[in-house]
């Protein structure tokens, strides 16, 4: 799900060697070389808004300016950090990579680095679609027309390791706490802003790296980001919360109310029935169709009409998608956000869950809390 991109990432992003040791990153690069057999190395781009691939290989979150990792097949990687030499000290704790340099004269740096790589192969490009045009031209000029292996890397990123799953579970626990705090605020009659901010605060206090929220001012029919203070209480309040912890995202929708409401009953039943059919090998489109059939004559919510979920991890929205047009199948190791939404002219309701696909089915990591609704 898209929410508003902040101008600067401020949350805790230091590399945590206990949670994600260096060998995890080395294994990821090794897996990439198996897919990119002729590659002499990889040029990996990331910025504030798009850095899942960079974070996967380096652990680095570019909080301010963009970064470019030069990862050789053989030898030590280096990370080029935007903002000049005096930014390196602040960037160093954010990555396991030891060789940090300023991102300047990209063309010259990449040319020289590519030349230094042994084996005669050429590097591959990852995340090039997100580069600003000027940098992309510089890299193209330096490295030539090199293969873009972003989608290959993403196929590796799909299957979460045990360490990654542990971190996702932590993110889900933080999500749960955020939505519980919002539920408490809602029940005590707080304004929409105070309710949203109560959840954000709870997530931050539990160490969230980033928290993004959307909410509805019109009974759940539409969603909006925080734009300015809303001093009135809105009940029920449809909320969306995404939290990022140790790099990994978890997201959830919930309908919060101070009184009981039966609006969530049908969507929650449909969501639960979707859990039952998720298993490795099952086409993602089948789950999307099952959700569409499950809501029956109710209208799908505009937010969930075209996509009933997506894989998640280091990015809020990863492939594959749970959509009727999807050609992908579920795999063990996938982590998904799964959503069911219904709406009419007056109101809308969306509930969701975070699920991990195991060898024989799915494990619900976070369900929309019925007790809060």
């Amino acid at each position, binding site marked *: 799900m*898209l*929410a*508003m*991109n*902040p*101008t*600067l*990432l*401020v*949350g*805790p*992003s*230091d590399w945590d060697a206990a949670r994600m040791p260096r060998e995890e990153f080395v294994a990821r690069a090794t897996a990439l070389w198996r897919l990119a057999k002729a590659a002499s190395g990889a040029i990996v781009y990331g*910025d*504030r*808004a*798009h850095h899942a691939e960079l974070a996967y290989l380096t652990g680095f979150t570019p*909080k*301010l300016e963009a970064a470019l990792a030069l990862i050789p097949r053989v030898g030590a990687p280096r990370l080029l950090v935007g*903002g*000049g*030499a*005096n*930014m390196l*000290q*602040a*960037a160093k*704790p*954010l990555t396991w990579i030891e060789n940090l340099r300023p991102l300047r004269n990209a063309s010259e740096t990449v040319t020289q680095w590519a030349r230094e790589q042994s084996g005669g192969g050429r590097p591959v490009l990852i995340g*090039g*679609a*997100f*580069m*600003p*045009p*000027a940098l*992309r031209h510089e890299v193209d000029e330096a490295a030539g027309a090199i293969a873009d292996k972003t989608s290959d890397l993403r196929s590796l990123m799909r299957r979460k390791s045990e360490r990654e799953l542990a971190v996702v579970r932590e993110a889900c626990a933080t999500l749960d706490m955020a939505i519980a705090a919002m539920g408490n605020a809602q029940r005590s009659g707080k304004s929409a*802003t105070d309710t949203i*901010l109560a959840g*954000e*605060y709870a997530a*931050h206090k539990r160490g969230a790296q980033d928290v993004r929220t959307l909410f509805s001012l019109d009974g759940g*029919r*539409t*969603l*909006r*980001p*925080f*734009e*300015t*203070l809303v001093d009135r209480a809105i009940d029920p309040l449809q909320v969306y919360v995404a939290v990022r912890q140790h790099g990994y995202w978890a997201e959830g929708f919930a309908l919060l109310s101070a009184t009981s409401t039966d609006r969530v009953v049908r969507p929650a039943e449909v969501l639960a029935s979707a859990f039952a059919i998720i298993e490795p090998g099952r086409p993602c489109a089948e789950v999307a169709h099952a959700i569409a059939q499950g809501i029956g004559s109710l209208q799908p919510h*505009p*937010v969930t*009409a*075209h996509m009933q979920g997506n894989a998640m991890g280091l990015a809020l929205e990863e492939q594959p998608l749970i959509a009727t047009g999807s050609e992908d199948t579920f795999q063990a190791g996938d982590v998904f956000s799964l959503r069911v939404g219904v709406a009419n002219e007056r109101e809308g309701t969306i509930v969701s869950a975070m699920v991990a696909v195991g060898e024989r089915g799915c494990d619900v990591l976070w369900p929309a809390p019925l007790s809060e609704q």
Partner: protein
Amino acid sequence: MTHEERLAAIRANMAERKLDTLVAIHDGAHFIETPNPVFVLSRFKSLGPAAVVLRKGGETSLTVTPAWDAERAKDCCPGLNVMGAEDVVEALTASLGNDGSTIGIAGLPFTRWEIASRLRQALPRASAAEDVVFGAAAAKTEDEIAHAREATRIAELGYARMLEIARPGMSEDELAVELRWHTKTLGAEDNFLLLCAGPRNPAVAPSNGRIMQAGDTLVAEITPSYRGQLAQICRTVTLGPASTDLKDKYELLVRAMNAGIAAAVPGVPMSSVCRAMNAVLEAKGYGEYCHPPHIRRRGHGLGFGSIRPGDVSLDNDTKLEEGMLFMIHPNQHLPQTGYLLCGEPVVLTARGAEPLTKHQSALAEISL
């Protein structure tokens, strides 16, 4: 200037350039240093990639992604023809057609490659039109100035909160997260909050997990955005008593800032504001620190829409006009103290630069 007057000026610029159609594009990655022509034309801050098409005849359309965000866009921009789309380039290409009209496009250099390359391919004859949009947005509208005043009020309250809670034992990240959240409770929808601490900071940088210590110098650029308009204050605080040397050097920066504020009057080039600040430092023997790699500018414009009038730097000859909004900050690395922050947002009036802050930069000491 009102928003409508700005749009009229943009249309006049289009006529001068003989453009039938103006396309503005933004990829949704909002950043203090990156201008957003979609925001300038529509005042809509998008979740994802978005575009505005302004026709010679006056019809204006706004395309937003994701499609479900179209209702919010309609609320924000009642005069525009709003369309929701899943792919902004496809939607734009379909709506523009191929009628041989002369197209100018603004925002391509700042958008991501995946969008820029497809748009270049779809509109091979479109010419760059940054000046058409941003030339008319060098001065802020009345609404933007009002929003900057509110953002400044929030920034000052954020700073007061920082003085209350910053203590040794707290990590930079904890402090930054708390301040960002606090300014949100005051109405800021975003905050470019650069904050770091150390015995001698090499620069101001994004916070990390470092635990602050007694004796640290804490530097912060507190930059809330209110309704899409940023305003910034640059502040320096010591955790514990400040040394005499630090107090002296900070006083020097305050004098430099005041010299910059005094020099900023309508009609002068921006470079003269930078020169006035440099002169104060040069007189004390810090001439070499007034240039790269130590410093590249002494202020900047304030987005998210237009970032004109640009940097307060020696190479910016933009003539200052009433209504321009920018930072004056003689932020400086000095060998004795490390990097220090000192700066105010100002709006240019007929009388000169008016700081938007109630309380201007002064070195603060947190008692431990």
